[in-house]
């Protein structure tokens, strides 16, 4: 009885489930687009650093890339988010979800770049040499020789990074993004009861991350079968 009463109070009364839906929507939107931004930044940073390691060119870009990675990895995510929201976008009217996408994308890019770099470095350097000896240039070698092999090592780590990202979006609550954690917090402030809203949020996170893990292992298996 108590259970149903509480569920009713948490979800149905006053259409409170809408908060959760809004939270799920924003969490997924931020994670998805931040993930895309992260991968794009990550690839660019990884290639700049790798190209620099191989040829000693692009010194300035490589320096900037290293600064970026070190700053992102060396400071708390919350702080980065607050700096972007309260300092960089202080005087502009801006959609807060968009701020979240940007901040988490920039944050994730640093970690993704390290994942991609590790993937590239895991491939025997003889592969690059063989490619060069055939007259292929750096982009061609990366595209046709290194990346197809490295992706096997990169994808699982990238999947884990994405799962982390989904959970990290909860930090967005600090600047008032109504993502899943904030949504449950809002509901709790109306029901004067924390247990059910928080447990429901936890279960939703678990469902999302569980589905993602499954998806990753399916992709992994496909990749392993594709060219072994």
């Amino acid at each position, binding site marked *: 009885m108590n259970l149903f009463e509480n569920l009713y109070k948490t979800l149905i009364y006053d259409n409170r489930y809408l908060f959760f839906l809004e939270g799920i929507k924003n969490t997924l939107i931020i994670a998805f687009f931040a993930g895309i931004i992260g991968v794009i930044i990550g690839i660019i940073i990884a290639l700049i650093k790798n190209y620099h390691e191989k040829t000693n060119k692009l010194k300035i870009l490589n320096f900037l890339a290293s600064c970026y990675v070190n700053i992102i990895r060396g400071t708390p995510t919350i702080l980065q988010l607050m700096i972007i929201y309260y300092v960089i976008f202080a005087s502009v009217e801006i959609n807060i979800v968009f701020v979240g996408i940007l901040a988490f994308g920039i944050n994730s890019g640093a970690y993704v770049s390290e994942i991609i770099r590790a993937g590239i470095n895991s491939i025997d350097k003889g592969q690059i040499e*063989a490619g060069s000896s055939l007259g*292929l240039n750096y982009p061609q070698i990366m595209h046709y020789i290194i990346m197809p092999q490295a992706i096997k090592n990169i994808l699982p780590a990238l999947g884990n990074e994405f799962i982390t990202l989904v959970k990290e979006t909860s930090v967005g609550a600090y600047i008032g993004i109504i993502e899943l954690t904030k949504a449950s917090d809002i509901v709790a402030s109306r029901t004067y009861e924390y247990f059910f809203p928080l447990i429901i949020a936890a279960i939703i996170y678990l469902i999302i991350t569980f589905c993602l893990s499954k998806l990753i292992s399916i992709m992994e298996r496909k990749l392993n079968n594709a060219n072994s």
Partner: protein
Amino acid sequence: MLIVKNLEKNFGKTKVLKNINLEINEKERVVIIGPSGCGKSTLLRCINQIEKPTKGKVLFEGIPLDDKKTDINKIRIKMGMVFQQFNLFPHLKVIDNIILAPVKLKLMSKEDAIKKGKMLLDKIGLAEKLNNYPKELSGGQQQRVAIIRALMLDPDLLLFDEPTSALDPEMKQEVLELMKNLGASGLTMIVVTHEMQFVKEFATRVIFIDEGKIVEEGKPNDLFNHPKSLRLKEFLNNIN
């Protein structure tokens, strides 16, 4: 065809190559011998600029390779390399391994490249391995595919860095035979190897390197039967 002038290569403070001078003409089959760590691989790698020389010049068909205006990738099409570890691309089938460069460099249509690849594989008796992945081949087969991969670009010069060192004795022969056939067809080659019997039959010239310097060079018979330097005598004694 190839001129190496005052070539030097340092790795940090260690001087690996010291003042190497070399001239190689068309249709020569030059073998480089020398003790382990004397700089043979480094010399080959400096010739095709996988390793940047510290000093000196490499000219290929009259073109200075370290020149900013030289497109080194264009040069490498004409100067192939075969590696000790084969370095086939494990994610690609045999046929895709050998057509990758000519197709992506737009030197040939895919159809023509496949046709040529099949013809070359057929010559070495590997036509039925077309759709296999490298790891499904024996070491000797892999190395011969790697040689075909280099030949697809019609190189003027082919560099070999210990092409049989990673192979079991039974498999060395098939690779060495293929190299002899290439030599007979007039291909210019520079080969690093420890297979002395092969060197005697194959080389038009032998270069002995020790501690990063060319110590002696000449026809294989002269060098093997009448070594002048003490170092070469010692080296030949050790190897036999």
